[in-house]
């Protein structure tokens, strides 16, 4: 049994490891195919800006997916909320803060509404959110007259366009490193206190090394261009917060339990319906966050904003390790998933290939990633 467990753990580690490898190989190819345009300071800065919306959407759909449901509506919802955001500034004279707050509230409400239909009216999630996918896009066309709405408020557009100054970037990197290292030590202490075997020395050292190299490395590289882009930081904040929600709160635990076995969760006194509904509230709320980042970045709300966004988000969550059969996955995985999906978009537009190919390649990468997931499940069972 112990051996088997060890094997399974290795395999799980291997899966995230595989995805990082997939990204490295992909980046390598894109770099060659774009004749050296892909891995440059400028393009990497663009890439992390672009991947932010996909990551944030993916962190949202992660919760319905873990409850063994699905949310097909987030792309359209992001588009609609972006439209509302732009209109609220242009027509109703709301400021940056007011418009952001407004779309957050609306996003949460729309998500909760869909969630209620799924959890209480027991309409399958696929149907409800497919309806949302159609309807929200339609509403966007209606309110904007199918025209792009420009955004001029500079405070607002900064959300998507500004960068952290290099100095501030270094400070942030130092803080993040410190938090990671301290939490590693705290964990080690807690293990000792509970009489568990402490982590081996090399693992501690490796953890510290990674905690230093990754934040400082990323900051260094992005500082070479213009500094850490705001969308990237928002993405990291969203992922950090919702990692805590998933891993450290009773709500997050219940989400995994519901996805693992809704019957067992119900008998254990978990309000399964309510918590499933909340999973959709989260995904609606994060669609709002993503819409703000997107609208600010391209300083306008377009009728086609977020088209296929749900597909990228679901793909990113699944590549990141969330299983469509529920109960499994880690929030930070969405970053690597979004990175892969956005790299394909970004690299292929650098190559000036027809966007049709982006779809083909993305499709192949998605199916390939889930195939790895399936093999992993088979081997470990």
């Amino acid at each position, binding site marked *: *049994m*112990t*051996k*088997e*467990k060890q094997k*399974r753990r290795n395999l799980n580690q291997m899966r995230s490891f595989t995805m990082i490898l997939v990204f490295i190989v992909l980046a390598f190819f894109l770099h060659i195919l774009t004749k050296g345009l892909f891995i440059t300071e400028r393009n990497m800065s663009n890439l992390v800006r672009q991947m932010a919306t996909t990551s944030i959407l993916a962190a949202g759909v992660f919760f319905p997916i873990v409850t063994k449901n699905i949310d097909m509506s987030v792309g359209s919802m992001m588009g609609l909320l972006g439209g509302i955001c732009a209109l609220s500034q242009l027509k109703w004279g709301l400021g940056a803060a007011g418009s952001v707050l407004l779309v957050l509230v609306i996003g949460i409400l729309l998500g909760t509404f869909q969630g209620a239909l799924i959890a209480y009216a027991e309409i399958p999630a696929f149907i409800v959110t497919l309806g949302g996918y159609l309807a929200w896009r339609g509403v966007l066309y209606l309110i904007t007259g199918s025209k792009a709405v420009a955004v001029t408020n500079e405070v607002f557009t900064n959300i998507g366009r500004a960068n952290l100054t290099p100095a501030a970037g270094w400070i942030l990197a130092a803080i993040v490193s410190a938090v990671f290292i301290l939490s590693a030590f705290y*964990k080690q202490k*807690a293990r000792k*206190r*509970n*009489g*568990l075997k402490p982590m081996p020395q090399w693992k501690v050292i490796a953890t510290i090394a990674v905690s230093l190299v990754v934040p400082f490395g990323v900051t260094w590289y992005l500082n070479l261009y213009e500094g850490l882009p705001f969308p990237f930081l928002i993405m990291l904040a969203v992922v950090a917060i919702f990692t805590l929600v998933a891993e*450290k*709160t*009773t*709500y997050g*635990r*219940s989400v*995994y*339990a519901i996805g*693992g*076995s809704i*019957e*067992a*969760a*119900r*008998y*254990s*006194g*978990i*309000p399964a319906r309510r918590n499933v509904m909340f999973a959709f509230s989260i995904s609606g709320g994060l669609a709002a966050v993503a819409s703000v980042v997107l609208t600010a970045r391209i300083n306008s709300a377009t009728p086609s904003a977020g088209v296929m966004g749900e597909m990228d988000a679901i793909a990113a969550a699944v590549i990141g390790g969330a299983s469509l059969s529920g*109960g*499994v996955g880690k929030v930070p995985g969405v970053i690597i998933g979004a990175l892969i999906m956005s790299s394909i978009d970004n690299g292929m537009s650098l190559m000036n290939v027809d966007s049709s190919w982006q779809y083909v390649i993305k499709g192949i990468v998605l199916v390939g990633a889930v195939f790895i997931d399936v093999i992993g499940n088979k081997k470990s*069972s």
Partner: protein
Amino acid sequence: MGESREKNILEMNHITKTFPGVRALSDVCLEVRYGEVHAVCGENGAGKSTLIKILSGIYPRGSFDGELIVEGVKKQFSNVRDSEDAGIATIYQEIELIQELSVAENIFLGRQPNKYCVIDWMKVRAEAQKALEEVGIDIDAMTKVRELGVGQQQLVEIAKALQQNARVLVLDEPTASLSEGEVDILFRIVRRLRKRNVACIYISHRLDEVFELADRVSVLRDGQYIGTKDVSCITKDELIQMMVGRELKTLFPKEVFQKGSPGFEVRHLTVYDGADKSRKIVDDVSFQASYGEILGIAGLVGAGRTEMIQGLIGALPGKVTGEVIIDGERVKIHSPIDAVRYGIGYVPEDRKGAGAVLGMSVRENITLASLKKIFRTFINGSRETSEADKYVSYLQIKTPSIEQKVENLSGGNQQKVVIGKWLLTDSRVLILDEPSRGIDIAVKAEIYKIMNELVKKGVIVIMISSELPEILGMSDRIIVMREGRIAVCAGRDEMNQEIIMKYATGSAEEPAYTPQEDRSEHK
């Protein structure tokens, strides 16, 4: 018909099968004669299913060592079809019919007779009807399988096997989901097949059935072949001893405690069906359970026992009326959330589907029902670890660590994890639904000991069970349910298997199926 009854129709010689890290079977031999009912017994994990999967071609040649000889000819099966062609039909515990197709279509699935390249439906229908008549069930071959009861479906599977001219019929726990009447029909069919010289390999946990039906019994233990005996030359105790490898005096370690106040009372509980709103699944049931005692609930499958419990904890969709009183206080239970809050723990029958979350760790399963109570919003990792640790050692759950996923534990240890979950919530009432189903005999005894411990600690324990020895061995008082009502309620001293069966079947006459057993051995 010419073959001698002394000759072997099937020989499995020196079968060894290893999975990565585990030797499931080592050098196992099984010889089955023409026209005999040959029982295969062993605890869970003894290797019975592995042996059957080799015989039925699920594990193809090359994936194991050893040889298969059918009617004197050495055989190598590459797939299930090869095995069927050799005359071996296997009927698994889970029904493998296609629910939306008719009985006739199922019987001929994949083998439909052709006429001018189209299926000859008239022939299918006629032949299927004949096959059904042969096993003695009176249903129309055009009925959809979905419309049949589980028992009838199993009989259809047998009809299908016979239509395919099976010479060896393998039945894997066939009675697990059958009612007493259906068990009767099954036994009649098996006996008739025996007369026709068809051999039957009968795998069952229910030793009474083995003694009633089988000619010989082979025992496996931990993947080893222990021996084969004539059923007429062996007692039940000897058989159990072969299975567990030691004397088993402590199977039901019943302890009697001072009976306390009736802390749990149900009055006039009626549970309506969720779909057909006028139908009562449980009809006006009242009972009490006291501190210091175990209340056993017996009855046939479908008598409404599980529905009664699930109805009272608010887990069923239909309307529920009646009162629940805990420690003299009337409580309103609308959903399992309320039930958990009032201290009612429910260990469901379907351990893997509804008891534990298999993909979660032991730690996460143990704290699942107490999260809100202990942590409110944020989970404190070290507190959680220490709580889980406490119950792992208290219940002696065998797991490499509390981080192990529950799906990797044995059934008995999974059950202990589910019980641990309810201990952590400080349940006042613990309701166990078929607590020992599919659990090794050795671990069963541990579960019973835990039940005693709980009673001693002041938990009211209610146990639903279809295993009469368990009901009689562990309960202080016994309720027998029939058709949604309580047929009788009495102390254990006034009960025996015959009385329970009489009330459960509702017949004053001889019960349909009387296990030949002396209940004193379970005391």
